[in-house]
């Protein structure tokens, strides 16, 4: 199994999905347990990669290569390096948590569970593939595969405006990715010999004009996914309407695909264009950070607030990317991971509350800290992590990002620091409105968080805390690759 580990990681969920298809519709328990087991097995496989992955090397490892479409020199090419490994791990982690969260989720429990878990596992395969594919064509395929289950998961199991949100998400992302496809083709035809192979493409040189155009095409695809201001408007809708576990996946993993794309493809392929667009990206990042923060501040819907906070936090990732130096990259990649865990947790917490109260209106709550002390503690924990409290992972990543961006532009960093302040504001304001103050008598009978829900949150907390206290545990995996990337971009490490 270890010889094709990456394939197994990618396709185990798919196998699970097809097993589910074969089950009768009413075997709810079986369906749930098989889905959960599949995600767990996938996670186990990811863990198998730990001893095999040599953290100190920068190249691709565990590479699997097979010719797929020889006419276009398209390969089935999977590989893992310090950029994708954390993302794959994050995906496995978040998937389990989301799957656990699904077990309890009201709308999922209602019915059509088979379809739900089928799509869920299909989604996981898509995401895994996206993070592991090294062939541009293969990457694109996985990238697109992610869209479809997402459409259904939002569209069928979503909230009141689910259809609108689902199609908006779908069209928006599709439009972006179509341009990315054009970009991919341009890269292919611009390469000599023609290939989609990332490992070869990275060493080729293109003219600046070509780079700029293709970078923009890729940018469109990735920026919409991240989402970068002003392409972010699908995000609040999709997040708010999606069922909790799907919001978790969406915020926890899906958004990372965009920034991952920058690191994996845009930067090594078009270093000159990347430098050319550096200021633009920095500005967009800062706008995203501040803008997302302000808009989050104005929200009365808990989930929407968290959604906009994602815009702000992903802005930090972009800022780190825009910095184009060692600290910036490390910060960005770490922020991708920590935002995945933190925001995933926040969405789970939104779900916990919504399942009980059936509302997400922040002004409707108050004083829940008394009724739900454990919930309160965890919510505070995640909020603090999100606002970048030292000792939790959010701080390390934001610190590194700022450190990196500071070396690039002081002004941008200064402005981005406003985002940190804003994060504190909207998160604490949220806490104040939900947990503190007088208990709204309406909620006097709300039960505290239960063990199932707790089990979805505690692992995330462990990671947040672990990384926050000793970031080396994860950064050691990232740094050689990121430094290598920086070197190929022609920058000093």
């Amino acid at each position, binding site marked *: 199994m270890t010889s094709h580990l990456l394939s197994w990681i990618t396709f185990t969920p798919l196998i699970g999905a097809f097993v589910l298809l074969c089950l009768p519709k009413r075997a709810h328990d079986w369906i749930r347990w098989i889905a959960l087991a599949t995600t767990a097995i996938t996670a186990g496989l990811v863990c198998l990669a730990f001893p095999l992955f040599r953290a100190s090397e920068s190249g691709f490892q565990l590479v699997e290569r097979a*010719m*797929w*479409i*020889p*006419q*276009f020199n*398209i390969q089935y090419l999977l590989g893992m390096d310090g950029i994708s490994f954390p993302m794959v791990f994050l995906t496995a982690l978040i998937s389990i948590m989301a799957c656990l969260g699904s077990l309890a989720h009201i709308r999922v429990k209602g019915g059509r569970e088979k*379809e739900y878990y089928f799509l869920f596992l299909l989604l996981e395969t898509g995401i895994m593939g996206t993070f592991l594919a090294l062939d541009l*064509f293969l990457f*694109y*395929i996985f990238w*697109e*595969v992610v*869209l*479809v289950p997402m*459409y*259904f998961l939002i*569209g*069928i199991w979503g909230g009141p405006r*689910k*259809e609108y949100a*689902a*199609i908006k998400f*779908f*069209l928006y992302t*599709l*439009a972006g990715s*179509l*341009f990315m*496809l*054009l970009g991919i*083709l*341009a890269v*292919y*035809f611009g390469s000599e010999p023609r290939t989609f192979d990332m490992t070869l493409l990275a060493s080729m040189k293109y003219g600046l004009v070509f780079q700029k155009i293709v970078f923009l095409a890729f940018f469109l695809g990735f920026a919409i996914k991240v989402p970068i201001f002003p392409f972010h408007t699908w995000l609040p809708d999709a997040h708010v309407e999606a069922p909790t576990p799907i919001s978790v996946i969406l915020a926890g993993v899906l958004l990372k695909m965009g920034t991952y794309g920058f690191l994996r493809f845009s930067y090594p392929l078009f270093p000159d264009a990347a430098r050319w667009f550096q200021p633009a990206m920095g500005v967009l990042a800062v706008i995203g950070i501040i803008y997302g923060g302000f808009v989050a501040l104005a929200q009365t819907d808990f989930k929407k607030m968290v959604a906009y906070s994602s815009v702000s936090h992903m802005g930090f990732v972009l800022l780190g990317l825009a910095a184009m130096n060692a600290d910036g990259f490390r910060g960005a990649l770490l922020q991708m991971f920590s935002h995945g865990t933190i925001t995933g947790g926040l969405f789970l917490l939104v779900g916990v509350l919504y399942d009980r109260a059936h509302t997400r209106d922040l002004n409707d709550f108050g004083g829940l800290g008394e009724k739900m002390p454990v919930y309160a503690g965890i919510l505070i924990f995640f909020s603090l992590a999100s606002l970048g409290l030292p000792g939790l992972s959010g701080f390390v990543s934001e610190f590194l990002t700022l450190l990196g961006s500071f070396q690039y532009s002081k002004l941008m960093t200064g402005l981005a620091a406003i985002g940190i302040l804003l994060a504190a504001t909207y998160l604490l304001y949220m806490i104040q409105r939900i947990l503190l103050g007088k208990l709204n008598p309406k909620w006097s009978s709300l039960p505290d968080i239960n063990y199932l829900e707790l089990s979805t949150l505690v692992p995330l907390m462990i990671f947040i805390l672990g990384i926050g206290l000793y970031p080396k545990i994860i950064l050691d995996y990232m740094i050689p690759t990121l430094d290598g990337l920086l070197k190929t971009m022609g920058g000093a490490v």
Partner: protein
Amino acid sequence: MGPVESLKYFIPELIILCGAFGAFLLDFAVRNKRAVGIFSLFVMAAAAFAMKNPAGETLSLFYGFFHLDVFAHWFRIFALIAVSVTLMLAMDYPPLKNRYEGEFYGLFLFMAFALITVAAANNLLMIFLAVEFVSLLSYLLTGFLKHDPKAKEAAVKYLLFGSVCSGIMLYGISLLYGAAGSIELGHVWQTLRSPSMSALGTVGVLCFFAGLGFKISMAPFHMWAPDVYEGAPTPVTAFLTVGPKALGFAVFTRVLITVFSPSFAHWGVVLTALSMLTMTIGNLTAISQTNIKRFFAYSSIAQAGYILMGLAVFSPLGQNAVMIYLFAYLFTNLGAFAVVCLVEGASGKSNISDYAGLSERSPATAFFMTVFLLSLTGIPPLAGFIGKYYVFAAAIEGKAIALAVVAAVNSAVAAYYYFRIIRVMYLVPKAETQPTFGTSPLYPKIVLWLMSAGVVTLGLFPGYFIKLLFG
């Protein structure tokens, strides 16, 4: 090659021809008209077996009237698949269950014959004859349901529009003949290069293109398509969306290859514009449709626009793109129409609203439909994506950036309306009045499985197909 020698390469055609007559005879003999259908299927199978891949060499049959090459071979296969699938759909299509059912199969065998000759036709006369043959049969089949006023109207419109276009095309052919002094495509090419003949030739070519444009429902010759597709019996619609269209593209490709490759830069502009126009019109109009057949008509116009991209950038890659796209489209669209047939069989109607809650009434059907719609949208790893990939690749390779961008935007728009159907099937709850699905009839189900298998395998292992098609 003389006529007698040629005959041994003409066996499939002969089998089908004989089969067609046989079907008519059988129609007299048997009560159970279904037997005629099964017989027709066997004929098709036999013809398919008799086909040989010329594998690289070009056989010049009947003194060069036919050019049997790899290209023609695969179009013939294409035609056989299209016709066979249509036959299978027709066998479980309730409105066709009347005393003329046998004739329907017979006519379709003739259709198969006409189609497989088109691909190999290598001079203007043969092209004209084959195209007319297909057209005339199409008119008849469209109006086959005698008592359906819509079908009649469709047939009339088809007839009138088609005949006028044929007339224009014939006029163009006559001009080309005059300019070139020959109806051999090769000669036409030579004369077109001389400047003295260019005006005459240009008008002739444009007239010729008009006729072909009608066949492939290229804007501005597309307007018949929605009405005809809506009115025709559903299996016929299924066939019309792929069969004549593929034929038109086959001829188009062959003409472009043999006649226009040197002066292509000139025609490329026209075709690029037409391609953009076609896909845009198709997509924009498809958005607001309420009838699923009409919806697919506009979708097919848009798809024609994408296929035209391959011709607009007339590189070898572009030619391949046309072929691949057509195959992808064949599987996808026939599969989608199989679903339409099934739903129509169950509910008797073909409005989009009749698909509400299909995912609950018949999960499998809805699932297949979703697969086909996703393929039409161009979502990997399905056949439609490979087609899209090919045309985009051709466009990018040919540096037709504007075309590629327009196509990309169009694809996104298209996604919207394809997902409208998916939305209706999955997100809209079923209405109380809608009938539940009984057990689905056998043949459309087989079609569903076969076509979806085609869609998925073409999507997953395009390399194999590409190798098969182009060596």
